[in-house]
């Protein structure tokens, strides 16, 4: 089988042509760097993405904190992970880089804060 892919690793967006059979690549061309080949291989086998979403914050200056997975997770699990995180609350203060949830998506990925959320100051 043949598939035309747009490599999403960087904004160059190379058009990569992959020929494959039974989830195994036989030829890959069009990529301008080795990352493109790795991307095509992973797209055929099991597409993975960095998931970015938000988690509710208690006692912060903002009601949400933006987060990401610390490594790419299976594309098919993204919706489920976001849904599960809807029931998660974290307490302010939060520092950028804090691990807010462990082992999501069954692949050992953690959820990491991408923004610092200071505590809301109590009104005097």
């Amino acid at each position, binding site marked *: 089988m043949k598939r035309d892919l*747009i490599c999403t690793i960087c*904004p160059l967006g190379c058009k990569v042509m992959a020929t494959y059979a039974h989830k195994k690549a036989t030829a890959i061309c069009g990529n301008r760097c080795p990352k493109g080949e790795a991307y095509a291989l992973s797209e055929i086998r099991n597409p993975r*993405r960095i998931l970015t*979403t938000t988690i509710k914050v208690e006692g912060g200056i903002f009601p*949400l904190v933006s987060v990401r997975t610390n490594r790419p997770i299976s594309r098919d699990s993204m919706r489920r992970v976001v*849904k599960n995180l809807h029931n998660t609350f974290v307490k302010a203060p939060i520092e950028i880089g804090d691990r807010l949830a462990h082992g999501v998506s069954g692949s050992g990925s953690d959820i990491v804060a991408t923004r610092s959320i200071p505590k809301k100051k109590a009104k005097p």
Partner: protein
Amino acid sequence: MTAIKTEHIDVLVIGGGPAGMAAAIAARLAGARHVAIVERGGYLGGILNQCIHNGFGLELLKKDLTGPEYAQHYIDQVKRLKITVMLNTMAIDITKDREVTLSNSKDGLIRIKAGAIVLAMGCRERTAGMLSISGTRPAGIYTAGVAQTLINLKNLMVGKRVVILGSGDIGLIMARRLTLEGAKVISVVEKSPYPGGLLRNVTQCLEDFDIPLILSHTIIEVEGRDRLESVTLARVDRHGNPLKSRRKKIKCDTLLISAGLIPENELSKKAGVRIDKKTGGPIVDEEYHTSVPGIFACGNVVSVHDIVDWASMDAEIAGASASLYSSKPWHRHHALEIELDNEISYCVPQILRGSRDTEVSIRVKRPIEKVFVGVRRDTMLSRSAYHEILIPSEALRVPIKAGAVEGAENLSIFIEKSSSIKREHK
């Protein structure tokens, strides 16, 4: 009533988004002592804070960051370099002599005399009202960026069944975001025969989630009394006019508009800065110097950039130049306006003075395949490079050496079909 005291600042940057921060940092590093950023909002980073997706920083920082992380990288430097930051402060007037009037609720009016000014106010979205959509005015119609603010910053969901008009990058990103949050994105509708956003966003935001992209179509009518109930989809002809036949009603409760961004230049105009009709932003040279001496501009206020890294790169040049100008103003002479091929809609910078090597950003009017893009100095071809395809949603940066500008009578950027060049060689 007391008179307003005028404060002197070496470099005043208006706007605390990615361009403003990069300019302020560069100005400080280039030697300006007192650098200040004026920001209308309550925090630095601007729109980056709601762009929670990744893909930022790949070009410039060689890291795959989310918007807030990219912003933090610059916020840390702003703090370290002791740049003054005035939050919740609005610049309400600028004169061509670089006197700026600011206003906030704490100090009232503030007047500043700046050695140099960097305009970095960014852009705003084209709204539903600016498109010709007939019908009622129900709730449920948002610009993609407003929906992004509501969902990513305020924890407010915008709807359940969504149609997105326009395939700009924010619209594509929001299609994915809404789907992940549990909404049904029925389709993304694009008037052009090709997508408006980066190809990588079409792939990872639409194809990944089986969201249909309907090209050469538009929304001509909305229906609903209190809340949006349906939109009418119509096919358009080659000129973008909706056809009478081939119309279809789609039931939905939300319509997002992602139909382009417009540089925000009300302030620039007050200072008398010349505006390019094509970009909607100031005309600049390779130092990002506008037509008014001592006023520089960078980022999306100049022209809408595809990726933030490039806005930051341009801003670094603008900031460093502003710093230099504030310590030792220079007189400008030799200026060459770049002439453009018919296939190119605009370029930035528009003017070259030969003061430094530069990269001129060009955007084509329509997709073209297998072409050479080159620079012609007077009658001499100085450089050309082959491109498999050029599309309007992805700007191309054409390097031009300072030496190519010096002493030139005219300078043009051309695009030639590779086949016609081959014929020339025969």
